[in-house]
């Protein structure tokens, strides 16, 4: 977002939020905290969005509201009383001092707000604020509650496997994306005349796979993924993120054949053997991060891109590389590692 352009394009809406008569209320930290952290999630959790209600609080009380009080009262007394009433007045501790059943109209909201009351109205679209005789439809300057709702609809790390199903089935097959992974037919034929293999990958496919995965996850999940190599040049294939205060790592591996750097020949085929060893390498890195680097890693994922011509099932040999040959890794394998389902990649555009 170009904020200079944004400010120019949204002058009127911004001025509404920053209106000098109301800025001390509308843009105050307690009001923003109340809405963002408590009232909007409370509204979101109530199933019937047609059951409109309002909560009034004196301006002075709103500016010194007790968050502990809000946390106590919202899920208990307020939730309960809203079953039978739709207009509550609360104090600075967010305790109900009055409860009524009224016909909520725009006029009522505005009139109430003229009595030094901050009025929160909960309609079908979310929480609205009415302050000093004015309905503030846009409480936030740079985003809307719809932006927030859309964000929450994005995948959480706990659903990363579902996210990767979409990645495999739609994103990787897009006409503008799929060719990025594969060498051109001209290159392939130059190396091997009349080559019948269709899935020859470009040089250094690991970077292309990693970057496409990073791009997709950053777009479709709630989290920010970054390349590990920004922090450690030795681990250039990994992605890293933090979600809900917990750290996650994704190690990327690929199977199949690629063009070598000088484009003189193909690489040796990367087979199921490499996927099996990918498990070992990832778990070893998980151990290193947790034990040696004292890094609070919640889970290390292994993500294998399978671009083999023949995608026969990969034999992980019951993970004997861990259970038989590296038993010291068993706790890390069982508690902090997850092998994601292999992502099948095929060249859909023979050029």
């Amino acid at each position, binding site marked *: 977002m170009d904020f200079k352009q944004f400010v120019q394009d949204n002058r009127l809406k911004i001025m509404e939020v920053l209106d000098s008569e109301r800025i001390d209320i509308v843009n105050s*930290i307690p009001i923003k905290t109340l809405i963002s952290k408590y009232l909007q999630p409370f509204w979101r959790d109530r199933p019937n969005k047609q059951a409109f209600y309002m909560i009034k609080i004196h301006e002075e009380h709103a500016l010194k509201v007790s968050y502990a009080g809000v946390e106590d009262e919202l899920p208990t007394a307020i939730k309960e009383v809203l079953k039978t009433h739709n207009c509550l007045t609360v104090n600075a501790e967010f305790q109900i001092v009055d409860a009524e059943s009224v016909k909520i109209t725009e006029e009522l909201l505005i009139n109430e707000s003229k009595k030094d009351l901050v009025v929160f109205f909960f309609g079908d679209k979310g929480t609205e604020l009415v302050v000093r005789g004015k309905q503030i439809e846009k409480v936030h300057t740079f*985003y809307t509650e719809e932006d927030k709702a859309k964000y929450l609809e994005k995948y959480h790390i706990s659903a990363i496997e579902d996210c990767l199903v979409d990645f495999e089935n739609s994103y990787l097959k897009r006409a503008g994306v799929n060719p990025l992974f594969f060498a051109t037919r001209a290159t392939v034929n130059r190396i091997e005349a009349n080559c019948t293999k269709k899935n020859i990958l470009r040089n250094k496919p690991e970077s292309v796979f990693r970057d496409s995965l990073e791009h997709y996850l950053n777009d479709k999940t709630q989290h920010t993924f970054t390349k590990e190599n920004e922090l450690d040049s030795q681990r250039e294939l990994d992605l890293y993120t933090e979600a809900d205060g917990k750290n996650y790592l994704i190690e990327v591996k690929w199977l199949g054949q690629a063009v070598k750097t000088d484009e003189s020949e193909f690489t040796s085929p990367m087979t199921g053997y490499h996927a099996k060893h990918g498990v070992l390498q990832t778990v070893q890195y998980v151990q290193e991060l947790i034990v040696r680097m004292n890094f609070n890693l919640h889970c290390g994922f292994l993500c294998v891109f399978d671009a083999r011509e023949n995608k026969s099932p990969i034999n992980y040999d019951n993970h004997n590389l861990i259970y038989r040959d590296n038993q010291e890794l068993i706790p890390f394998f069982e508690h902090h590692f997850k092998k994601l389902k292999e992502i099948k990649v095929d060249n859909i555009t023979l050029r």
Partner: protein
Amino acid sequence: MTLYREAKKNSWASIKRSSVFRSLYLSSVLYSFAFEDVDNPFAIYKFSIDRNGPYEKDVSDALEFLVKDDYLEFEQDGGSDVFRLGSHPIPEFETAETNEYDWIKLIVDILNIYGEDKIYEFIFRDPEYRRGVQSDTPKTLTVNPQNESVRFLKQFEQAFEESISGANYYDKQEYLKLYFEFLFSKILNKEI
């Protein structure tokens, strides 16, 4: 200690070790925007970058000291190091009303709008942190008045003053709140 006290007022029962570094980094790197002609008292911190974001060894040592003398309590929560206020009373110098105190309070209050778990996302989009991550080694962060975050905030302020009548009457706090809101919009829209 101020950080913990203000966090407690905001109903945070405890703060993760990584959040301490991150909150103090934000306090340090943004200070010179609000107090242009004052030496930055947070300039004593020399932040580097590790996997968790900003790291400062003296702050790490201070946490250990505060635990040893019961100013803070330490526990492991879900694998994270977390600290909460301990049994030792908060020392008097920590309750003095100073710029530093007010500043940390403001930063904590703003972060509380979005929640502790979002601090990482704010750090990730902080202009000075972006510069530090993308620079060649050594990956260090600067909190001097010319740092990237302060430069960005000044441009931000200028954009408002040029486009919105009356904007030159807003104080630095308003711009700071708007700045965090701007970064939050980037978080929601998955922009860096």
